[in-house]
């Protein structure tokens, strides 16, 4: 059982390393892009709200695999292809995940009752003070646990890149199939690898949930 892993160690190592890089890079980008979109959705400008709502509704109802296919096969036809398979994968994951980050940010801000900021304004705080002292610290609490779920989903979604010639962990079975290795053992090791990555995130999320639970 161990020989499957040890004989093909470079394959597993490189695969999971690429998975982690995909996850981290698209995680950071989706956080930035999704927060901007979330800000759009709670802004007083109707056009910005419309853009945010439209983006979320379209992307949440589109399969991620289709986003991948469009960027990998379609974008090149408009000469908009991203420089490498890795970055194309990052692009697809970011476009998709941002919609979910946006929803988390929006609903996080909406959990705070308007009375909070009305009180803050009543004692003479400026918009920036209201935002940074009153609204954001409370929104942050409501945002962290669901945001962690979004990131756990992102980590699992990186496997889809395997279908598009990105050599991350999800592509290991195909390579091992060519080498004639035992597929079930290969998949078992990949499952263990993903559990090693995901279980700490799950515990981190539970911890954050307890930490941020409003007493």
């Amino acid at each position, binding site marked *: 059982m161990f020989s499957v892993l040890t004989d093909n160690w470079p394959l597993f190592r490189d695969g999971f390393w690429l998975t982690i890089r995909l996850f981290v890079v698209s995680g950071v980008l989706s956080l930035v892009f999704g927060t901007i979109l979330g800000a759009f959705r709670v802004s007083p400008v109707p*056009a910005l709200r419309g853009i945010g709502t439209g983006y979320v509704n379209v992307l949440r109802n589109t399969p*991620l695999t*289709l986003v991948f296919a469009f960027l990998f096969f379609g974008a090149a036809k*408009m000469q908009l292809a991203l420089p490498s398979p890795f970055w194309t994968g990052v692009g697809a994951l970011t476009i998709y995940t941002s919609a979910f980050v946006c929803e988390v940010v929006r609903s996080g801000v909406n959990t705070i009752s308007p009375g909070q900021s*009305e009180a803050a304004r009543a004692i003479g705080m400026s*918009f920036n003070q209201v935002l940074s002292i009153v609204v954001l610290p409370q929104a942050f609490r409501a945002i962290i646990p669901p945001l962690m779920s979004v990131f756990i989903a992102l980590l699992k979604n990186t496997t889809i890149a395997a279908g598009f010639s990105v050599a991350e962990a999800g592509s290991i079975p195909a390579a091992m199939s060519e080498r004639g290795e035992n597929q079930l053992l290969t998949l078992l090791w990949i499952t263990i690898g993903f559990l090693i990555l995901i279980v700490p995130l*799950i515990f981190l999320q539970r911890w954050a949930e307890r930490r941020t639970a409003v007493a």
Partner: protein
Amino acid sequence: MSTVLYEPPGPRAKARNRITNILVLVVLVGAVAWLINRMYQNGQFEGRLWRQFQYSSIQQQLVEGLLNTLRAAGLAAVLALLFGAVFAAARISDHKWIRTPATLIVELFRAVPLLILMFYFYFGNIQFQLGLSPFWAVVFGLTLYNGSVLAEIFRAGIAAVPKGQREAAYALGLRKNQVVRLVLLPQAISAMLPAIVSQLVVLLKDTALGFIITYAELLYVGKQMGGRLTYGFPYIPTYIVIALIYIGLCSLLSLLARYLEGRSRRRRKVTGAPPPITEAPDAASGLDPGDKI
């Protein structure tokens, strides 16, 4: 409109918002125009790229792909609901030796990427010649993952029924089976419906993973159509059509979920039924059996 972030705008803020609104619209129109121009420059509006959609054989292929998608989604939905019901029942069991393995299995299938679950059946079939077509790999993968999520939804729904209901039923001398079947489930189901339908949207979207394991669903058909030299590799037109189909189907289901949620909320005002559950309990919110939601 007053929100947590800003008060109803006064005359100056109104003017400012109006100007920003116009600026944003200009930028948006500019961006769309740039994209369309980009497509035009690269010949994406040429007739031959779009012509194939007029042919009935091609339309038939699209319909066939769509039917394959719906077949996999439909069967997987039924199996996942069964799986969910069985495992939810196991998770609220009084016997630890039933509860613990059920909890482990549900947690495991929710943590493993769905594509990897499908790979077990796909590559397992190749290695052991099980005679499973990719269709079954898609269906079984979807069943295990979505069934586990549904099990959590069912359990959360039952746990969300006010405690007094359960206590009153036990006080009347009903057995656990009767309490769950006659008292808790009927009340829980209407609260769970929005979450169940939302999960079915996820299931429908995830059938597209079949593309990767060569199941001839909608996206797979799209790749074949896009790759045709005769029509100048019409990837973009094909994907636009396919995206419209997916978005249409999923939006309809999402609308249904929202309608059910609204109905459940309205009914709640009248009867004091439990609040609607709108989405799957967090992939990671580790609630022990018996926890209150």
